């Protein structure tokens, strides 16, 4: 069981026969229960990769298999998005209804799930994202961040086996962001959901299992957070930034304070500095 890209590539066709190679042949496997972060500059192919993973786009060459099912098979047109839930960058691309709870119910209704089960799932998903008190509102009158939370709830209610999230917290306040990340971490542990998480916010992914760096349609590096986030030339090339804890650790190490210069989280920095006391 896993999502597998086997030399999958994707090209967009533009007017006048121009071809834009968004994803060069890529081989990759995403396991259940794993949190894979995807980072890279604007235009590096992250969002295209996300759409390949759930069958919304079909590879130009190569194949994408979801638990062994090829996304190209007509039979899997419904199966793929059911197994792999995709949360878009912009919530407005996926909001459909004029009442919050109808919107969240839309996905599970299409899966043919019995009404009482849908009710339970919608309540649970809204609670998870902290939007229960807004269940009767019109999403169009809510703020961008609130709409983003509803979009996440809509996908959670489908209870997919894998989640692909394209900057799902870009418009949320810090606590809203933390809540979503904590929810994801619980889902991985409890239900072994595999998560692919695209972001520009490095602080969100310091605890990922793997970080995948994309540059110009290619995966240029893949590794544990500490390995990736302390590789200065890689970070520069992929337009990533050094987190503030790492910046502090490096500055202190330079001034002769005995701390490792490869710290990446607030916790690590606090711990090392405490031990010097």
């Amino acid at each position, binding site marked *: 069981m896993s999502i597998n890209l086997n030399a999958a590539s994707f090209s967009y066709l533009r007017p006048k026969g121009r071809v834009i190679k968004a994803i060069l042949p890529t081989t990759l496997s995403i396991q259940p229960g794993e949190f894979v972060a995807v980072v*890279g*500059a*604007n*235009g590096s192919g992250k969002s295209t990769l996300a759409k390949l993973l759930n069958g919304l786009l079909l590879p130009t060459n190569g194949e994408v298999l979801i638990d062994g099912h090829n996304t190209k098979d007509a039979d899997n047109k419904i199966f793929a998005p059911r197994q792999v839930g995709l949360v878009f*960058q*912009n919530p407005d691309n996926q909001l459909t209804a004029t009442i919050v709870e109808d919107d969240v119910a839309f996905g599970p209704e299409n899966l043919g799930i019995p009404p009482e089960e849908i009710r339970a799932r919608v309540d649970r998903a809204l609670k998870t994202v902290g939007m229960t008190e807004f269940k009767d*509102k*019109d999403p169009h*009158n*809510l*703020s*961008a*961040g*609130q709409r983003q*939370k509803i979009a996440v709830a809509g996908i959670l209610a489908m209870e997919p086996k894998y989640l692909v999230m394209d*900057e799902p917290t*870009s*418009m*949320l*306040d*810090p*606590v*809203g*962001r933390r809540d979503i990340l904590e929810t994801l971490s619980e889902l991985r542990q409890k239900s072994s959901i595999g998560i692919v998480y695209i972001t*520009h916010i490095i*602080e969100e992914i310091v605890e990922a299992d793997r970080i995948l760096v994309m540059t110009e349609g290619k995966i240029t590096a893949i590794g544990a957070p500490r390995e990736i986030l302390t590789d200065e030339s890689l970070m520069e090339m992929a*337009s*990533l*930034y050094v*987190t*503030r*804890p790492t*910046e*502090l650790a490096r*500055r*202190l190490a330079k*001034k002769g*304070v005995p701390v490792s210069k490869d710290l990446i989280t*607030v916790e690590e*920095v*606090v711990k090392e*500095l*405490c031990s*010097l*006391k």
Partner: protein
Amino acid sequence: MLIEIEDVSYTYLAGSQAANSALSKASLTIDRGEFIALIGPTGSGKSTLAQVLAGLLRPSFGRVIYEGSDIWEEPKLLSKRRSLTGLVFQEPEKQLFEMTVAEDIAFWPKNLGLGAEEITTRAKSALSAVGLDYELYKDRSPFTLSGGEMRRVAIAGILVMNPKVLIVDEPTVGLDHRGRTGLMDKIQKLNQAGTSIVFVSHDMDTVAEYAQRVILINEGRIIQDSSPREVFRNKEMLNKIGLEVPVATEIGARLREVGYHIAPDPVSVSELEAGILASRGESQR
């Protein structure tokens, strides 16, 4: 004083069952050359306040005063007065629609009836303010640009109106690191050249880095209006309403608990670094 708002309230869908109060009794003033951050949890009314400040939403109650005159008093003068401010919406690149960058930037000045030469001069300077070369970009379709470039063009489309107050609603969302720092540096340059900035953001580290003044809003009310250091001193309250303090402030507070003498509350990595080094120096003496 450039802008003054007095006891402003705003209710969406006022009078209907779905009425939703977004702003209540907000008062504030904006002076020339200020760099103000507007922070608050998701749904707290930041974007509504930004639109009221920009003269785009008429408050249900209260007054909006630009350079001494109430902008909603005489509707005839509204569009002229409104050009004091420029609002860059969230994801402004979605509002690009012309065939070329030059035409897109010329849209508002054309509407105002400015001459072609004046428009070109302004467009050149607006694009250069966001770090793009007019000659290189003018004939390109906005839709072939990168995300960061598109956003800059959209901002240039507002700057071309020469606003004295530039209001930017989460300008860096979705941009990669280079795009983000590039854009913030351009906004800072505009500020140094005299434009007042109102910067709506969820990124407390960026707020601490750039803003001189922070306005904190929660449930439609302005609950604090002071320096970043003052606002970020109140970590517990900020956490309670959904916000955090900058990373440096957080680490500083935790280190103080174990006996480091770090004061006053650091809001940047360099302040924190200095605090840690000083504290270690003391204890070695």
